[in-house]
């Protein structure tokens, strides 16, 4: 009896002590937070943990080992796929950023007949189901007779084109949103001070668009790196990417080797993202 009343007492006290905006001190918010983290990160943590598992079947924990990292590093097929994936991601990101930025500027700057349909068409790859894009790409490359058996890295051409086609609209959307807040007088001021069109673009527009370019580039990079469906349809036997390779490995059995390779990929992406964000924060002034 006395304990209950004491408990109530303290409950009431804490309740009264929580301000209306002290959300982090409310129990249910904490539960949601913990639940979210569990849901998001438990699989990833498990993946990383089991990459050190000393067991071929990789179902129960049998002790710590690094040997699957070694094995993965010595797996030429896996390394080749990894290099392919990074190459594709880099090239398609660079092209996507340039193309996406150009589309964004075109849509923002100019009024031309058919603008609305054009905008819709450009953004279409964002909403078209990936599987359809994949089939379309397959049909397209077969129809135009895309040459097979080119030397590396030219043999990645078809995959790179496919990746550009679905990632540049994302860049365009992000950069366009950024441009919506641009003060045209900044551009005119540069022109007025004697800058040519190109100098104005380089010195005023690009610095302003930079956060959009970085964010769009990150999106394009990660989209390309982990794309499976479209790549699957456009890759040949000698142009295997990392996701496709992992898929083929997993079809036989989930070994710690797959986990090890995936862990390396996670680390690479997280590092690249962190660097990009750091660069962006360092150079980004407040908007006015």
């Amino acid at each position, binding site marked *: 009896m006395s304990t209950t009343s004491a408990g109530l007492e303290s409950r009431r006290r804490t309740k009264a002590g929580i301000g209306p905006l002290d959300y982090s001190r409310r129990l249910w918010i904490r539960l949601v937070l913990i639940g979210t983290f569990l849901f998001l990160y438990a699989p990833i943590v498990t993946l990383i943990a089991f990459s050190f598992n000393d067991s071929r079947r990789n179902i129960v924990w049998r002790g710590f080992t690094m040997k699957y990292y070694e094995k993965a590093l010595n797996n030429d097929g896996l390394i080749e796929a990894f290099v392919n994936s990074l190459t594709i991601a880099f090239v398609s990101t660079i092209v996507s950023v340039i193309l996406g930025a150009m589309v964004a500027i075109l849509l923002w700057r100019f009024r031309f007949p058919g603008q609305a349909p054009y905008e819709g068409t450009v953004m279409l790859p964002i909403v078209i189901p990936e599987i359809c894009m994949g089939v379309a790409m397959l049909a397209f490359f077969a129809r135009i007779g895309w040459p097979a058996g080119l030397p590396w890295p030219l043999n990645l051409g078809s995959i790179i084109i496919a990746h550009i086609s679905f990632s540049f609209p994302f860049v365009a959307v992000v950069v366009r949103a950024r441009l919506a807040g641009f*003060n045209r*007088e900044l551009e005119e*001021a540069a*022109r*007025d001070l004697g800058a*040519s069109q190109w100098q104005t673009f380089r*010195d005023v527009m690009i610095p*302003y668009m930079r956060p959009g370019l970085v964010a769009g580039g990150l999106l394009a990079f990660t989209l390309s790196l982990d794309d499976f469906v479209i790549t699957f349809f456009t890759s040949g036997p000698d142009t295997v990417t990392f996701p496709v390779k992992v898929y083929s490995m997993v079809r036989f059995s989930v070994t710690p080797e797959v986990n090890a390779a995936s862990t390396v990929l996670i680390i690479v992406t997280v590092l690249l993202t962190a660097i990009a964000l750091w660069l962006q924060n360092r*150079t980004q*002034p407040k908007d006015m």
Partner: protein
Amino acid sequence: MNEASPIIRIDNVTKRFGQSVVAVSEVGLEIREGEFFALLGPSGCGKTTLLRMLAGFEIPTEGEIYIDGQPMTGVQPNRRPVNMVFQSYAVFPHMTVFDNVAYGMKVTGVAGPEMRERVEEALELVQLAGFGDRKPDQLSGGQRQRVALARALVKRPKVLLLDEPLSALDAKLREAMQMELVRLQHTVGITFVVVTHDQSEALSMADRIAVMDRGAVKQVAPPADLYEFPNSRFVADFIGRMNLFEGKVVNANPDRLTLAVDGIGTIEVPGPPGTAMDSVGVAVRPEKTRISGLHPGNGQIAIEGVVEAIAYQGNESHIVLDLGDGARIAATLQNSSRTTTPVAAIGDRLWASWAAADTLILSD
């Protein structure tokens, strides 16, 4: 200054947006070298459009603009000998104050010690010496505007264009900056063209003012002429306060006009020779209108009315008399002593009067 050659000649310029919007219509203007020139007019009258045509951001639909004798058709904004201070200031947010001011020289190939010297000089001129390393987001609005000024002045333009340069500042700072701009203009000797919709700003700063209405220039004159001798009802009403009546010329002698004025009756004023228009505007400034209990006597135009409103404004009071038939006349009285007693109360019957020579006859 009258003989000075025009640095800017606007020759019959019209600007249309699309088919229907005429932003600037058949404007002809000459702006003299070293002049502080103001473009004044209500919102939407085309001031900004005219200024942007001078800077090269809009292209005249018809007519030609000459700057320093050169026709400007086909000359890009970066090749014109003018610089602009934008309404939003448009200070580059990602550059320091120094880099902002240096930018105009960097792109045109002025570098090294000469550039540094000129930047320091310009920052000094606008009293921002020592602010070079700051980013624009660490400056106040007034300081940002000084950066915009320095950035334009450092280019040593023939003409400096300013679009509503003071509209974003609070009242105190605005007054200080008005003086500052005039001082600056005297120091550098560059022609200033300022756009404003604030008549008191234009009157206090400019050597000459062009008043615009719906795309057209109504009058170009020095401030005092504009105030005392407006040439149209629009200018008379726009600059300061004005008692405006409608009337008819009933008899025109070479130097005297007899007018029948609605709400006042028949009056006789010294008229401009040769005025023979039918209906005219008849106007008098409130501060030239006197209020008295008795008829002021001969030589004055006088009418009787009932006090309708009295507005006390500290330095002066405004009294409005109802003349019947919806006609009103306002008079401004200076409260020139602390003990000035109110001359009237609402409902009193009083005389409003003014010297015949202070009557304005407006044909337009």
